[in-house]
């Protein structure tokens, strides 16, 4: 095949960064938020994280072997691990073991390998898995553990964590509760207004991550820092995060100004749910996002709009998974209509006219 031929044409030199390097850079950027989440929710969260990652690798190996391809380079590129990592961060931290396994199976097999593997999938695998789990197992996927950091007296120990992970949680009401977004959605349905609902709300707690929520989504601060670092490294561009967050902030500001008792403040939107994780790490997925800067701006704005709409008027308290998947499906369309202008041609591809001088 042509690809295996000794390269004859340039460029003979090139950047050293390869796919593997990019994947590990993203994981490195996720590290602070992940470490914080694992600490915040203790041993059961650690169990779930490890199970999700290991099962993703397992399913990847099976798929690659079925395809008759070399296993080692495919595993070593880190894409399966990153997918599982992102999935784990969006799961309820004390979810049972099989949530992690089923989630990884959906992400790797249905989300990625049936399309032809890395680079071929239409939808973000982690989000496919998250949404499939949420629809199929609504109870397990909305049971949010209280904050119970490692080595705190009331937190579960290692042995107790195995019990939680492998045979389920007893005394659920004492150890779990609602997320901010979930609580607001429920209370709104009972015609309460925000100033009553948010008596105990701590903006600072939510911003730093000291709150109930998905395993790695709680700390907006650490996720944001990781995202900014990724931009500095040149791994992701600013277009998608900026337009996504900008759209949510803009819409939230407008509605909050109109009616501050029925619409959350932009800051609250920003520090709740998976918004920041999605903005920096999920929506920016190369494979499933458009490949021109303008297309990326449109894509980000679309995600932001859908997130805001689903959060505000939808049946689910959080809409980032759905929003990303919907916009993923629009990516080929965006790429078809928004493309760079070729030098010497107009936007329609016709040669420019010779200027009369």
């Amino acid at each position, binding site marked *: 095949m042509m690809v295996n031929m000794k390269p004859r*044409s340039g460029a*003979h030199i090139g950047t050293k960064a390869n796919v593997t390097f990019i994947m590990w850079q993203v994981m490195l950027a996720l590290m602070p938020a992940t470490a914080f989440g694992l600490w915040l929710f203790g041993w059961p969260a650690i169990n779930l994280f490890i199970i999700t990652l290991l099962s993703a690798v397992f399913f990847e190996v099976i798929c690659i072997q079925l395809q008759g391809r070399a296993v080692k380079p495919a595993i070593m590129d880190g894409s399966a691990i990153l997918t599982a990592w992102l999935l784990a961060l969006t799961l309820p931290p004390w979810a049972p073991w099989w949530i992690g396994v089923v989630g990884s199976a959906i992400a790797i097999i249905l989300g990625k390998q049936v399309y032809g593997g*890395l680079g071929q999938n239409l939808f973000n695998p982690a989000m496919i898995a998250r949404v499939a789990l949420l629809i199929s197992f609504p109870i397990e996927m909305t049971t949010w553990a209280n904050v119970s950091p490692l080595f705190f007296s009331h937190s579960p120990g290692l042995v107790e964590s195995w019990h939680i992970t492998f045979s389920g949680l007893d005394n659920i009401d004492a150890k779990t509760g609602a997320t901010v977004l979930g609580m607001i959605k429920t209370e709104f349905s009972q015609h309460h207004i925000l100033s009553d609902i948010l008596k105990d709300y701590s903006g600072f707690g939510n911003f730093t991550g000291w709150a109930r929520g998905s395993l790695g989504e709680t700390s907006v601060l650490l996720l944001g820092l990781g995202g900014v670092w990724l931009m500095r490294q040149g791994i992701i561009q600013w277009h998608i995060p900026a337009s996504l967050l900008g759209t949510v902030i803009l819409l939230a500001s407008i509605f909050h100004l109109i009616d501050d008792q029925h619409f959350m403040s932009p800051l609250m939107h920003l520090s709740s749910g998976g918004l920041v994780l999605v903005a920096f790490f999920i929506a920016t997925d190369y494979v499933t996002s458009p490949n021109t800067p303008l297309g990326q701006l449109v894509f980000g704005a679309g995600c932001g709009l859908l997130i805001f709409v689903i959060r505000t008027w939808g049946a689910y308290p959080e809409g980032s998974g759905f929003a990303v998947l919907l916009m993923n499906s629009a990516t080929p369309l965006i790429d078809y209509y928004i493309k760079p*202008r070729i*030098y*010497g041609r107009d936007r329609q*591809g016709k040669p*420019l006219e010779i200027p009369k001088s």
Partner: protein
Amino acid sequence: MLDFFIKPRVRGGVHPEARKENTADENIVTNFPIPKTLYIPLQQHVGKPAEPLIRVGDKVLKGQLLAYSQGLISAPVHAPSSGIILDVNDYPAPHPSALPIRMIVLETDGLDEWFTSPIPDDPFQLTPEDISLRVGAAGIVGLGGATFPTAVKLNMGRENQIDTLIINGSECEPYLSCDDRLMQERAEKIIDGVRLMLHGMESHHAVVAIEDNKPLAFAAMQIAAKPYSSIEVMQIPTQYPMGWDRQLIRYVTGKEVPVGCRSSEIGVTIHNVGTAHAVHKAIRYGQALVNRVVTVSGGAVGKPMNVEVPLGTLISEVFAFCEVNLEDTARIVMGGPMMGDSLPHAGLPTVKATSGVLALTKSELKSSEVQPCIRCAACVTVCPAGLRPLDMANNIRVNQLDAAVDLGLKDCISCGCCSYICPSNIPLVQFFKYASGEIVARQQAQHKSEQTKRLMDDRNARMERIAKQQEEDEKARIAAKAERERLKAEQASQESLA
């Protein structure tokens, strides 16, 4: 800061490590020993190959015409040194394939004796047409690597009454520093060449554009250009591929050359600094283009340098002079590392296009471990032509060449930015060159089959016509015979009656 708003944005591009320091600080080496044998290809330019007018055994002088240009776009070839013609035959070309092309083989006599031709006292008294003629007769082609015959370009510039002549001193390819050294050491000669070109095109404004990573060359050129108000020297940002003519034209003049147009049609012509230097030598001293400055660099080169070599010198001899370690050489590249071609071996001649010869070690090369495309779109971001290399490559991979053409394959300039940046190490430019070649081959095959069909149809029609003719002839013959016999019978009956 103000520049940011005034100057047009440079689109796409990459910032490869320059790696010019090994050669950029040393003078051009001019004492390269004359090789025993020179291999001079008849085609060292864009257009038709030159036609030899010497015979094997002829004794020739340096600069003497060996092969004349034929056709509108072509260039002659001259003897790079004095000696005897050994052979005119096919030898391996300095091309990735090393397929044989026609070359003149010259055995040098070591005297390096110039062929004298009359020199004008004041070249500015010559007519502009005469300048073009002399430039054409000297075999000068674009020395930046494009090798388009310079005289043709001068004529086009004159006919289109261009208002700006851009002299390309960007030298944006990494490793290469031959233009940089030329500008530092021979600034006055280059400026003289620029003035002659302006005269040849009846134009009055030239801009010498030099990347801002060559401050010494910029300073030297500025001093040399000072007496002439028609020549402006400017600095341009260092960014690959700043030296792409159309990018440079847009940056300097703000004009964009439409697809399918020559730049002279919008009033701009662009020439390389090396070309200006060659024009100076041709007009002032009557010297044909018989040697050039070549950058020899790369990790495997013991003594990297810029060296002036006779055209036709085998790369192996240049390598020996520069102490290249062939064991460490992972790839030989002719030209720069971004656009240059890799050569299968060093037994190939240097030509007019050879701006550099690189002996690269494995650690300098881009990894060839191909990973799947992750649609990171880095190739889209860096493409100066505004293409989407990833989509083009995906189509080519599944043999959808027409789709690739629709995406702009023919607007690809092979600058190599996409291949350079690709984290999956996909040899994108190679895909595009393969597809372009394949499209030409398919068109030729289609043309050939159409031609064959036409010939077949013609033959069938001809055969039919002949058969018809024969049939008619036969009928006529039978009719004539019957007539004859009838007449005979009539005659006989009349005779018997009588």
